């Protein structure tokens, strides 16, 4: 037992060699695979609400990670490219509103790590950089993000702690919260959920509320980046879907999960992006793979079981949203967080098209004080 402890203590020394990274795996990966297959086993539904690849698993695995890195640099996919390019400028507008002293940074879904690099660079230049804890369901994504995020920075390797974990599960968040508090003590933490990742979840408001409840302490801050829309009609929804449809690299990325978890012969023409109006809160974009072969197919899943994939049946590969101002405000109220700072970047859309943009919000936990009046149900 004593020798094992020593091995753990030797890790910082090992990390001096740049080729090594340490990664904490926080959950059973076989369980995650069962989750993917369960999503693909759902019943037929031509409207895109049946079979699906749930958020997170689109990035789970090496092929998906590489495809995502390519998509982020695709000239035909300006949304993500411009969002990365303008992040430093947008972040500068908010960084003044951070708490004083050293700050630890927890990046939930770090993506390619470029935005994390901008944030860490700004903290490092002021000598305020603490621990860097990227959290993602994909180990490959973590390695990629970490390499990119820490380039030319003075963050000691021992202060970097990647965690492989699905942060959309409440039990995992409890454990993650404990790990972070043990690591940083009472010092403030900046959490981030960037790149419109929140919009990929069916229950986006609930996820934000969960993250705020389980992770945020009064001294912590939460950096949230979401895509926004000024218009909210059918034409705007179609234009939003078009943004995704135009990019060949993005199409390769969304189908990479299909390639990985099924034996489907992928036909890129079977991929469609559907734009819908979601009440008054958002434009919803569903990226769907539809069986257009005219006959029923059989999908073989990673556990060697087969599922029916009838003609016109669909697999939802990705879900995204562009939030309206009202929708965003409602979501923040519902998640019990307050806005400390905000920057908004108008998008790249043409003068006669709907205005899409990216909103970066610095959030703090709601004050949580209860009204003083008598409550008959207390």
């Amino acid at each position, binding site marked *: 037992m004593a020798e094992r402890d020593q091995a753990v203590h030797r890790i910082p020394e090992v990390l001096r060699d740049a080729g090594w990274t340490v990664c904490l795996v926080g959950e059973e990966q076989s369980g995650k695979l069962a989750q993917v297959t369960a999503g693909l086993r759902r019943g037929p539904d031509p409207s895109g609400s049946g079979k699906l690849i749930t958020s997170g698993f689109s990035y789970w695995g090496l092929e998906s990670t590489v495809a995502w890195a390519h998509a982020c640099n695709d000239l035909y996919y300006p949304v993500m490219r411009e969002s990365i390019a303008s992040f430093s400028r947008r972040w500068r507008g908010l960084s003044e509103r951070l708490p004083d002293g050293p700050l630890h940074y927890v990046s939930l879904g770090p993506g390619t790590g470029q935005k994390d690099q901008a944030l860490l660079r700004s903290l490092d230049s002021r000598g305020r950089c603490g621990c860097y804890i990227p959290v993602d369901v994909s180990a490959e994504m973590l390695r990629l993000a970490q390499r990119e995020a820490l380039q030319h920075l003075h963050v000691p390797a021992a202060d970097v702690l990647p965690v492989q974990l699905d942060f959309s599960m409440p039990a995992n968040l409890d454990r993650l919260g404990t790990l972070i508090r043990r690591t940083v003590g009472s010092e403030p933490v900046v959490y981030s959920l960037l790149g419109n990742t929140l919009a990929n979840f069916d229950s986006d408001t609930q996820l934000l509320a969960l993250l705020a409840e389980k992770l945020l302490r009064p001294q912590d801050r939460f950096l949230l980046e979401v895509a926004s829309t000024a218009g909210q009609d059918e034409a705007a929804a179609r234009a939003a879907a078009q943004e995704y449809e135009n990019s060949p690299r993005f199409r390769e990325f969304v189908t990479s999960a299909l390639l990985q978890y099924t034996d489907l012969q992928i036909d890129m023409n079977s991929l469609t992006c559907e734009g819908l109006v979601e009440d008054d809160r958002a434009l919803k974009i569903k990226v769907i793979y539809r069986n257009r072969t005219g006959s029923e197919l059989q999908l073989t899943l990673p556990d060697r079981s087969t599922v029916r994939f009838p003609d016109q049946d669909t697999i939802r590969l990705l879900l995204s949203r562009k939030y309206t101002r009202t929708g965003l405000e409602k979501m923040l109220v519902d998640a019990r967080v307050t806005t400390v700072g905000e920057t908004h970047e108008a998008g790249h859309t043409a003068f006669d098209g709907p205005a899409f943009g990216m909103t970066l919000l610095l959030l703090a936990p709601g004050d949580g004080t209860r009204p003083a009046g008598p409550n008959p*149900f207390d």
Partner: protein
Amino acid sequence: MGLLGRLSRQFFAAATIACLLAALGICVWWLTVARGRDDHFEPAASGLALVAAITGVYAERRAAARERRAQALYALADELVKNTELLGTGFAPLDRFAPRARVYPRLMQSATDAALVSGVFSEPGHGELVALLHRWRDAVHDFNRRLDLTELRTYVSRVPPEELLAIDEAMHRPGGQLDGLRRLRSSVEELLRGRYAEPGVAVRLQQPG
């Protein structure tokens, strides 16, 4: 209270039946010892009258009790169905973004009260139902009283939206008042469906509220 007052209904029923059975036994004995043909009529007629008294009185009382119990069960089932609907949709949470004071529906308890005071479940074997109905009745009474207070609080003075939401959240919280009522309602339904599942009761429980 005298000695007679302390004796239970079961004692009097047993004493009456015992007397009637003894009289019937005497009639039978009388029939066997009677000598002349005409002498047989009197013990035979008395015996038949006693048989009618024993079976008729007892059976009629049982049938009447059964009928009263069935009526009480039907009323309980109807009330349960209405309360199921109220607990399902009648207490929808307030709109977080436009909270307003509202008049809440009240849960019904008249059939429960009637079932308890009528004594139709006073015979042995219904102890569990009676205890559960008492708990249900107390919970409904308590809940309805809290609704009175909520409405007084929210209508009499200008209450800020946060307070309206706080009251609503406290009402809906897991393990709170509404949750407890829903659990009790389920227990009553389970008991009615299980042990008192007469055809009429089952049909009523299947009806939408």
